[in-house]
């Protein structure tokens, strides 16, 4: 058997269909008798709706029905629920205003859905939607967090005074203030983390189907977690019990977080299908994606580091305003709190940390997790601040990091912000990355670039993140309204092939291959005899889906546990067949053998006996070889590493070219190195995008200015370099695979590396900080505004 198990760079099983145009994405699904939905959305950032008249639209050709929020309310349809409740400093719960599926009396952002037309064709639905008459009373709007918290700002929700959703904190302020009082030096930095639009290439889509005979509903949707959608939509919105609702997330064209949440259109098409008793399909146009997919990031932060005279970090104090948008998206409240502030120790042994976060409502699209979710914000803050500490104290950027690293022998390491890291070696990833990037040889390259009239800089980021989300009891105590375990059902069929039913979901990660490799490794079954099934609540027992780099650490571990059960049962069957005692049976490479003898049985012998139990210990053992395991992780996992970016800035245009990028990450054990590399490269591309190109811009009145690919600068092939990826691993100590997760590291580690490099390139211009994106215009202005000054001025 070829080597296909853990560590093999096997080519992906899913590629054949994707490469031949045989993928099965939601918009490819057509149900018999299907109708099409078009959503009429608000073009006003903030307004009262005084009248909606659907008379003309209802009479338009091909129209079956027009529905508004009032129709849903009449049917007792609930609002979109929020899955996480944060408590404020004073113990009070966050403000959680209603989030109607279709806006009823007020719209709160451009793109807020108001009505839906269901018609025979997409064009008929769209044409009719134009005929809906809506009278608005416009209200003043707020788009930025600073404007939203200003006194006298218009209120997005009447019951959220000051537009504050919550005012939360972590750490002991008095202790941190005391550390600052005795510090030799305090370094302060104000920064923003730019708002991003995830833009998976597949626009969101949903097809609702209703079977009048059985009363069963099926929703096909672009989701990262179909069971979560079934739970939220069934229990809280449409009141359909789980046994009458199937949610299928077929091939999904990228998610990056934006397809975790339960969206209005999913509930709308499912409900509408029941009303008109025919299937109803909705597919977003890209313009709708820009104004209705949850956005990411959008923080405004003041951070201060207290240092002693030799550059040791004594304390960190952080105050952040986080934009929630017009409503709370499914997981929004936990992003700037438990996925952000708890990461502020980073790879450093900063002894005391205090962070306060105000989450703020604005007249913008809801903000939620986007690749990295909270951790890129924490990392950008820390790695910028550490560079500024080096600059302000005159220390070397590498030296100040090494001095403050948590040493490799300090694990398990308890941070002052709740997390306990299990393993890591930050010196090792830093060393390997500096070497691969030829950091030592940089000054010569800077000189060579200068001779060509280019400004060259190099930047480092040493980072850590928390993923493998998450221990249920822990997140429950922090406000999560769900458990975050994972589920696997593994069937060994009578003739020895295997089907894995996983609660995780693949939307580009390659689970059909990686998860199958786990089966090769543990059960000794060849890859082509293993099938991985995901994304269908009708087939899979349960699952929490894929986000937070959790699929292997949590979902893979559930598989290991299910396979352990299969092996344990197989041993009993083998003992019976070979007339030996169970304790003497060993299992290796797909063979059950009796220790110390040459007697053995293959897994197929055992599975056949299990399903054709003629000679079988039927008195004490049930037939079949089919096991399910639920696994609740014991801790988060903590991937980390070092990213080095090297840039050249054109003095005449301000354009930055990333000329070299090296990432050396500790992602724990690697199952498929080819896939890990691809995940890191994709993440880095998004991180470089955030650092140099991407920005979701609202004008002061709440209109989205970057609402298409013409205005929102997506990274294109020519904007990016080849991305060198290395790994330098330590094993996760609390899951049997030793895996940590690799989906988000690229997007988390890279933005500060790029910005640190840009600032290094501009060191003669006295630049202390530049907010992202470091656009040509910003850099050109800096370069134009002055003769080079000395860096230390």
């Amino acid at each position, binding site marked *: 058997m070829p080597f296909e198990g853990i560590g093999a760079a096997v080519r992906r099983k899913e590629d054949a269909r994707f490469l*031949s145009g045989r993928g099965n994405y939601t918009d490819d699904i057509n149900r018999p008798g299907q109708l099409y939905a078009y959503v009429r959305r608000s073009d006003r950032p903030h307004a009262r709706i005084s009248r909606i008249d659907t008379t003309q639209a209802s009479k338009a050709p091909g129209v079956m029905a027009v529905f508004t929020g009032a129709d849903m309310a009449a049917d007792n349809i609930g609002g979109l629920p929020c899955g996480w409740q944060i408590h404020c400093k004073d113990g009070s719960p966050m403000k959680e205003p209603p989030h109607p599926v279709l806006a009823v009396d007020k719209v709160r952002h451009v793109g807020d859905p108001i009505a839906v037309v269901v018609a025979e064709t997409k064009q008929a639905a769209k044409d009719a939607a134009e005929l809906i008459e809506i009278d608005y009373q416009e209200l003043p709007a707020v788009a930025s967090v600073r404007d939203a918290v200003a006194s006298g700002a218009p209120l997005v929700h009447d019951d959220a005074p000051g537009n504050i959703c919550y005012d939360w904190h972590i750490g002991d302020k008095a202790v941190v203030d005391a550390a600052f009082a005795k510090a030799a030096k305090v370094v302060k930095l104000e920064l923003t983390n730019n708002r991003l639009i995830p833009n998976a290439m597949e626009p969101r889509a949903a097809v609702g189907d209703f079977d009048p005979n059985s009363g069963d509903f099926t929703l096909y949707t672009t989701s990262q977690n179909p069971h979560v959608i079934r739970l939220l939509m069934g229990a809280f919105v449409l009141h359909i019990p789980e046994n009458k609702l199937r949610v299928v997330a077929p091939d999904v064209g990228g998610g990056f977080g934006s397809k975790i949440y339960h969206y209005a259109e999913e509930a709308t098409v499912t409900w509408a299908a029941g009303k008109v008793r025919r299937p109803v399909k909705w597919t977003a146009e890209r313009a709708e994606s820009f104004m209705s997919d949850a956005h990411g990031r959008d923080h405004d932060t003041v951070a201060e580091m207290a240092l002693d005279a030799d550059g040791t970090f004594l304390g960190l104090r952080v105050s952040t305003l986080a934009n929630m948008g017009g409503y709370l998206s499914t997981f929004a409240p936990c992003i700037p709190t438990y996925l952000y502030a708890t990461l502020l120790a980073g790879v450093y042994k900063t002894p005391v940390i205090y962070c306060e976060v105000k989450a703020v409502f604005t007249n913008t699209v809801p903000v939620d997790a986007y690749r990295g979710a909270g951790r890129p914000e924490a990392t950008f803050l820390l790695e910028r601040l550490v560079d500024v500490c080096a600059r302000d104290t005159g220390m070397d950027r590498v030296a100040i990091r090494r001095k403050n690293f948590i040493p490799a022998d300090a694990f398990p390491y308890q941070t002052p912000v709740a997390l306990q890291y299990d393993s890591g070696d930050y010196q090792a990833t830093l060393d390997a990355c500096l070497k691969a990037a030829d950091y030592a040889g940089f000054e010569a390259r800077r000189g060579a670039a200068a001779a060509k009239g280019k400004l060259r800089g190099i930047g480092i980021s040493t980072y850590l993140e928390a993923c493998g989300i998450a221990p249920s009891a822990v997140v429950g105590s922090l406000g999560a309204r769900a458990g975050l375990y994972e589920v696997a059902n593994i069937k060994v069929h009578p003739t020895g092939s295997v089907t894995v039913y996983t609660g995780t979901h693949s939307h580009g990660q390659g689970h059909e291959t990686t998860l199958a490799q786990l089966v090769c490794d543990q059960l000794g079954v060849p890859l082509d005899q293993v099938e991985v099934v995901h994304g269908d609540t009708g087939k899979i027992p349960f699952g929490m889906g894929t986000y937070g780099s959790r699929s292997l650490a949590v979902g893979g571990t559930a598989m290991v546990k299910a396979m352990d059960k299969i092996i344990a049962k197989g041993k009993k069957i083998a003992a019976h067949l070979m007339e030996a005692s169970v304790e003497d049976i060993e299992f290796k490479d797909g063979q059950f053998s009796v220790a110390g003898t040459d007697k053995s049985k293959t897994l197929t012998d055992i599975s056949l006996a299990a399903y054709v139990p003629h000679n079988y210990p039927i008195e004490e053992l049930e037939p079949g070889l089919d096991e399910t395991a639920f696994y609740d992780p014991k801790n988060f996992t903590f991937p980390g590493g070092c990213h080095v970016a090297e840039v050249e800035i054109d003095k005449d245009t301000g354009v930055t070219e990333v000329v070299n990028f090296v990432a050396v990450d500790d992602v724990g054990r690697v199952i498929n190195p080819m896939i890990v590399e691809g995940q890191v490269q994709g993440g880095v591309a998004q991180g470089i995008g955030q650092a140099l190109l991407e920005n979701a811009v609202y004008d002061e009145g709440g209109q989205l200015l970057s609402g298409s690919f013409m205005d929102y600068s997506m990274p294109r092939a020519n904007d990016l370099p080849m991305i060198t990826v290395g790994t330098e691993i330590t094993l996760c100590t609390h899951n049997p695979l030793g895996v940590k997760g690799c989906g988000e590291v690229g997007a988390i580690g890279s933005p500060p590396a790029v910005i640190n490099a840009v600032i290094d390139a501009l060191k003669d211009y006295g630049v202390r900080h530049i907010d992202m994106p470091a656009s040509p215009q910003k850099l050109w202005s800096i370069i134009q505004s002055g003769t080079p000054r000395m860096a230390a001025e």
Partner: protein
Amino acid sequence: MPQVTLTVNGKRHTVEVEGRTLLVELLREKLGLTGTHVGCDTSQCGACVVHVDGVSAKSCTMLALQADGSNVLTIEGLAAADGTLHPMQEMFREHHALQCGFCTPGMVMSAVDLVNAHPEGLSEKQIREGLEGNLCRCTGYHNIVKAIAAAWPLMHQKAAAAE
């Protein structure tokens, strides 16, 4: 309703369309060829790229009527009749140049045209510039660039051998 007659993947079709029907709508909705994708509404992403008379074209930016009488090749028709993958498909698989697969059909069709158009050779820079009209959110393009570079000799050797 007006009619259009065109050949798609070697098969002739006559289809009724509205004047405003796009080529991509004809392919996906009338012919059921859902391998060609729609990723945007501003002609920016290239998920919809097919070949029209041998040259890549954004099928979201062409009316179905404009394709009347033409010969269209979509991703479904790229592999050989016996199912053998085109070298570009093969190299995308070999170099892990796809993750979610959504950009892939358009990316592959663009890449085939790019390689065809450059028998003299293709540098990394030219490949990156040649992908100007194709967005991928998953891969960071690194492996796509590698796959196209690896497909170039295979495609041109094959062409040379056939001559």
